[in-house]
């Protein structure tokens, strides 16, 4: 058994230590907002926060997540998250929507540390998150919109 603290609640899960956090979250804890896209940390769909930092849960074994605070899209809250999600909705960023949980987790991670990101900052923070619908222009716009909200 491995203890995982997800969105503030600690669960004892019956998982091998090498099981990626992604599959523990999705299959054992039934939190399906975090998505599988590649399994090799190349697409960002599985992005969650580990002690507040965005990580790819497909490449984070549960043994590494144990004892740390895991936040998924279902558990985000607070000023930054609210600003980001409101901006995503306002700009109608999503198309298929599959990548957007991961995009939003990365965007929250960026804005939590940098309230005034430049285009280069956005590229650096978000280029690990693929969007096959290529909603990138609106993602960039929504990050800036959220930054504006937070700066107001």
């Amino acid at each position, binding site marked *: 058994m491995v203890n995982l603290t997800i969105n503030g609640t600690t669960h004892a899960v019956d998982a091998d230590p090498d099981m990626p956090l992604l599959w523990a979250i999705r*299959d054992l804890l039934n939190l399906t907002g975090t998505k*599988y896209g590649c399994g090799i940390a*190349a697409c960002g769909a599985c992005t969650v926060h580990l002690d507040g930092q965005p990580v790819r849960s497909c490449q984070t074994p549960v043994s590494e997540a144990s004892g740390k605070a895991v936040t998924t899209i279902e558990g985000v809250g607070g000023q930054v998250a609210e600003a980001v999600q409101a901006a995503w*909705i306002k700009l109608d*960023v999503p198309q*298929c*929507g*599959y990548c957007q949980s991961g995009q939003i987790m990365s965007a929250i991670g960026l804005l939590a540390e940098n309230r005034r990101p430049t285009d280069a900052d956005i590229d650096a923070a978000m280029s690990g998150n693929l969007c096959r619908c290529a*909603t990138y222009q609106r*993602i960039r716009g929504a990050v800036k919109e959220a930054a504006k909200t937070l700066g107001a």
Partner: protein
Amino acid sequence: MLAGHLPKLAPGSGAVSRRRFLIGAAAVGGGLAVGFRVAGAADSPVQAQAPFAHVEMNPFSAYLTITPEGLVVVHSAHLEMGQGSYHGLATLVAEELDADWSQMRADGAWGNTQAYGNLVWGGAIQGTGGSTAIASSFDRYRQAGAAARAMLIAAASSAWKVPKAEITVENGVLSHPSGRRAGFGDVIGAAAAVPIPTDVSLKDPKDWKLIGNPNLPRIDSREKSTGRERFTIDVKLPGMLTAVMIHPPLFGATLKSFDATQAKAVKGVVDVVSTPRGIAVVAENMWAAMKGREAVTAEWDDTKAEKRSTAELAASYRDLASRPGTVARDEGNVEAALSGAAKVLEATFEFPYLAHAALEPLNAVARRTEDGIIEVWGGHQIPDLYQATAAQVAETTPDKVRLHVMKTGGSFGRRAVPDADVIVEAVSVAKALGWRAPVKVQWTREDDMRAGRYRPMYVHALQAGLDAQGRLVAWRNRIVGQSIVTNTPFAGLVKNGIDVTSVEGAATIPYAIPNLRVELTTTENGVPVLWWRAVGSTHTAFAVEAFLDEVAEAAGKDPVAFRLELLSGHPRHAGVLRLAAEKAGWDRPPPEGRFRGVAVAESFSTFVAQIAEVSMEGGRPKVERVVCAVDCGVAVNPDMIRAQMEGGIGFGLGAIMKSQVTLDGGAVQESNFDGYDVLRIDEMPHVEVHVVQSTERPTGVGEPGVPPIGPAVANAVYAATRQRMRVLPFSRAQGV
């Protein structure tokens, strides 16, 4: 996506003018007559439509349900895979119903070809593709909304004992000057008893509030921004098992034997079974299934497998392109015109296999219920076909199959697969387990990338002749590649030996050229192919528009002016080209260090021109800005049109710059996003979209943003480097 070869829509064909129509004669079904869910019904609104194929259904119960809570649930004939079909069809219903936008919902419909058949394809089968959702459903969903509105008014009229004409409907509220007011949910019980109107009229376009409204919030943005949207990968059923597949390592290889002893010892692995499409490792969860798979050993018979490399295939395609093919279009005398030309140009373009690589890898869930119903959850892009196929695999009849149409994490054509691959797998695995548990078959990224169904590889060999005055007098385009539709239920798209999806955009070249011939050589090999967002125009538009740029240069003409001269018979092509040129400031030089290229293409009866502005960084092009003009007839959802142009540009740009699937000894070399490179945010240009105001019948936008971006960028790269980009992706070309 399916090649939606739209019939040419006559200008002003009437759908946007005020008119009356008769409601379908086969309307009355009985039972839940008018499609209003009666108060107290326990099922969720998303399950409200009748579940089986052969139940006679009222078209209005097929298209929408109003719940007692006042929600209007639109049952979409078209799959939602990101392109916004649910949003679009909900807009059409809400407009005529005078609903409040906040009360609108949408779900995926199936099982009633009469109601949902794709009218652009002829109506005989339900399906999504060829950018047809709005074109196919523009009338019927508005009619459904108008009929429902008439029935709500009739019910209120009876209840309030006032004339129907005195009742108004606005923002989901029925009201009467006396002060009486009711929501839709308040009167559905009575409305359900109202005879279905035989004759309702649609709004005059000048009265539209939602159609054409650029500020209508997308219907599913909130779910998709909070992690609450559910896809097939998220389906959880009691006792459900998860299976991963082991597909043959080469296309056409077959299973000889396998040993699953070690795999079955892996914690969480429940069983390992053989299916006609490969071995399935079935487990309690995905990780256990993946670990189990690593422990399976298998022997394959590759006697009949495709073993060639893409380099070998390309060489044979180039050779074939040097010889005549089957004639797809022939005007004048191209050979005589080429021999008599003052100047002859030639160029050969090469296009790789491309994977769809939708972010949700393919999946499906199947189970058999206690009463013998086969249920299948999935991205049902061709539901009628999948229903029939699932029945066949389960050895039952289609009326015993129930589909659950899930939204999908992209598709780009991949879910419209005539052999129903992953659906066959899910049903096969559930069956192999003796139906003892629901089964989700989930492909990994590697499975998705390596299981085939690619945009076919193509070679185009072109020649053009100019006369002494620099006029384009001859054009020959020889196309070589596989047919997408041969040996599928869509084989009717092969006419006189020509798969129209192979030559669309090339045989339909709009330019006035007196001597013109387009030829096709259809190749056969073992690599499975499929429609990929914009289908034939993904390669034809590139070859035509990039080569035309070469011709314009040889003629000493400006690329926009040269095109416009040749487009006198094609006002909508010319219209978007002029608009894009104007908005991009084509008549002025680009900013310092920027280089421009232009392209225009029609696909699926939507016209798109794009002007790309490129800079060079370390010998590599960076697309800074794209100005896009689109004419898709009536703009039902202007912001969705913008979104699809933005997305189509990004999708197409990644492909032409970086994406390819290659084979070595028949084995696919790319397996994930580390090797199969696609566009990322730092490479996304700033896109400006200009939508032509039009009263033409609406056409689609899911695909038509893709074709022009490749040649527009190639032409801009030429302006920057004097190097013609003729081999895709650009990453293969030296120096760029």
